[in-house]
């Protein structure tokens, strides 16, 4: 069983897509965290970017995995027309579809992970290089409404108290564009820990786990595919026969020299003997299989089963008889004698051809 080379799509595609995703995540976060002219970043939008969109992406990935029919983010990306043609061929053309699906899923997870890493790098760079003020605005929501959700989100990093959101911090960070700006800049900056923990917990960590699982699954499917190759039937042989070249054919005759003696080598039933008498006259004498006919000048007619292949013991027997004799292969069933097939006739003529002066006898008219 062959394993097409394209079951191992090039390393180039995940590498390039990963780099592009890293850059995209980096640039998007950089643009987003630039905030307004005062460096203020909307905390709720940040949550959307760091928590809700990655979570939705993860859920979609899982759904596609369960449906087993989707091609995922990588599939959609690679279906775009601007990639090099060989990328398209590597990703979608021959090979195991199960392996390819696993590979597309793995590349999708890699793209998602690299987006997150790019985003994190940009976030760290901004935190390092500039002051960011995290504020939130809402017409409908109050700090009391938001606090439980944020505290719920922060449960996974309970061990990091500095990164926990508090009602007081929420109240201090609420912003009104037309209201009085009374924010303490150092307080507004405290949200970075929460944002970092949220990014790691809801994006990088699960996506990293998915990436590992996807990679393991891809490797497993590839190995399974190779196992199928290994499970193919292997036949090792000793000795090799070849179809022999056909030998000389004995003459085919329709009459025989009279009188003759009959040897019923075939142990044929009475209708066959009557058939012989009808077509070739009655023999001088009839002998059963294995019995030697009398040594006279009369030729011997040896009746054999036409459908049976000639055997060595018949050859041994015929060699004890006088030259100028005949082999009569007959075919019969319960209805009586029937026409001998050309295949069987040829077989008997080849066999008799090994004997000097022997002929194969057949009635002029087929049975």
């Amino acid at each position, binding site marked *: 069983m062959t394993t097409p080379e394209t079951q191992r799509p090039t390393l180039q595609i995940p590498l390039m897509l990963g780099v592009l995703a890293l850059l995209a995540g980096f640039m998007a976060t950089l643009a987003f965290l630039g905030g307004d002219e005062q460096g203020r970043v909307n905390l709720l939008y940040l949550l959307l970017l760091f928590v809700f969109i990655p979570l939705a992406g993860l859920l979609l990935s899982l759904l596609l995995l369960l449906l087993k029919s989707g091609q995922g983010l990588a599939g959609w990306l690679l279906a775009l027309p601007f990639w090099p043609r060989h990328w398209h061929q590597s990703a979608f053309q021959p090979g195991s579809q199960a392996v390819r699906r696993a590979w597309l899923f793995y590349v999708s997870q890699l793209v998602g992970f690299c987006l997150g890493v790019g985003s994190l790098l940009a976030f760290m760079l901004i935190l390092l290089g500039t002051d960011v003020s995290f504020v939130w605005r809402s017409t409908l929501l109050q700090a009391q409404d938001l606090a439980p959700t944020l505290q719920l989100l922060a449960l996974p990093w309970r061990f990091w108290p500095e990164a926990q959101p508090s009602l007081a911090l929420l109240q201090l960070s609420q912003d009104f564009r037309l209201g009085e700006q009374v924010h303490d800049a150092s307080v507004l900056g405290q949200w970075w820990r929460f944002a970092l923990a949220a990014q790691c917990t809801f994006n990088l960590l699960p996506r990293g786990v998915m990436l590992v699982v996807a990679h393991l699954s891809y490797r497993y499917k590839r190995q399974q595919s190779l196992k199928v190759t290994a499970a193919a039937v292997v*036949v090792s042989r000793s000795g090799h026969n070849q179809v022999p070249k056909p030998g000389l054919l004995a003459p085919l005759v329709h009459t025989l020299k009279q009188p003759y003696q009959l040897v019923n080598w075939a142990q044929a039933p009475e209708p066959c003997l009557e058939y012989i008498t009808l077509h070739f006259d009655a023999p001088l004498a009839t002998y059963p299989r294995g019995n030697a006919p009398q040594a006279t000048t009369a030729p011997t007619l040896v009746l054999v089963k036409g459908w049976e292949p000639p055997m060595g013991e018949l050859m041994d027997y015929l060699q004890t008889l006088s030259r100028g004799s005949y082999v009569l292969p007959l075919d019969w069933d319960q209805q009586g004698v029937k026409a001998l097939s050309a295949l069987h006739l040829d077989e008997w003529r080849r066999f008799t051809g090994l004997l000097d002066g022997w002929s194969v006898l057949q009635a002029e008219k087929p049975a």
Partner: protein
Amino acid sequence: MTPVFAVVGHPNKGKSSIVATLAQDDSIAISSQSGTTRINESLTVSIGDTQYTLVDTPGFQRPTAVLAWLQANAGSAEQRADAVKSFVNDGHCQQAYPDEVQLLTPIVNGAAILYVVDGSRPYGAEYETEMEILRWTGQPSMALINPIENEAYVEPWTQALRQYFKVVKVFNPMAADFDKQMAVLESFAHLKDDWTASLQGVVAACKQQRIAQQQASLELLAGLLSDLCSYQLSQKVLTKSQAELLRPVMEQRYFQAMKDKEAKAHAALKSLYQYHHLESGIYDLPFEDNLFDTEQWIIWGLNRKQLALAATIAGAAAGALIDVGLAGQSLFLGALGGGLLAGGSAWFGAEHIADYKIMGLPMGGYEVRQGPIGNRNFPYVVLGRFVFLTQALLRRNHARRDVLKIEEGDLAEQIDQLPAGQKRALHSAFERLSHQKPVTNLDQVLQPLFI
């Protein structure tokens, strides 16, 4: 311990055919000429971690004389097996009875006996000599009745063979399907307790391998379809007149490459099913020289009407997505419009094969492009030919040496028998393929046609 079976019997009763079928080996010499097997041919069949050996032997030639020798050399029943061993090792016997020495050698070395007779011909008392010799060996044995031409004499043969063999089975190596082959292998497992686990492992591995073969053939077809439907040939030239001149050359190269791809996939399919020497007439059909004659595609793909219907189904399915997106507010005009549009273009575009395009390059010069094939029927044609070959291989046995002849495909009928959902998925996938769009679950879509 590897189970070993010596396949013995009269000459020309299908011993080699049985070995070829069970070993899935189409290289074993088989002919209607008696005496083709002159020396023992031992085939060890390995599937995964399991294996067994079949020994193809020459037929009996002088059983009467051999039995006489044995009777002369064994005074009582307990000496019979030793007498057979002495016979095999005796220098004079090796000269006088080479065929019997060959066929008895694996048996005295521990092989079980598979005795083969022809069930289409009357039973003959002369066979009793052979069976008596085999009984003398004392090895586990089983008789296989091979109904070479018909089953007219299976019953009398069964009656006679039961007196010499505990297990008697009818097995036609030319016609036995996979299940029958497995049934015979399973019955081998009962011949010797030590071999039971090993042979059951072989049967399980064979069944597993059959599933893997089916999956691999699906993947092969999915790859072939994607490859052929998206294949494009391009060449850069300096002037438009050069591009025009290139047209016949490009066309020939393109179609040749397409044919080669298909032939390669068909060869891989044959190889997948262990046919390494099979000649198939699929390449020698008169229309094969003109694979790209759409008139001939009706044989393998769909006719114009069926094609338009398939495109309508696919178009309606795509249009229905729009309706779903609009929560039905489009009054199902999406499905209707999509169906009409696709069906109409399939009807009127049935003759269209592959485009020849001359594109101007921004930096000067031109690029000529041949393909891809946009005809909606093309994937069905590729599918029809591949499915035919797969089914022919599944029906065939490794003992057959005739050329695999082509028959008219019945793809349209097979597609018609699919449930509506599977049919729609197939037509939609092929619609995508004919527009050079990737279909990632193509193997799943094609699977119902392979069951």
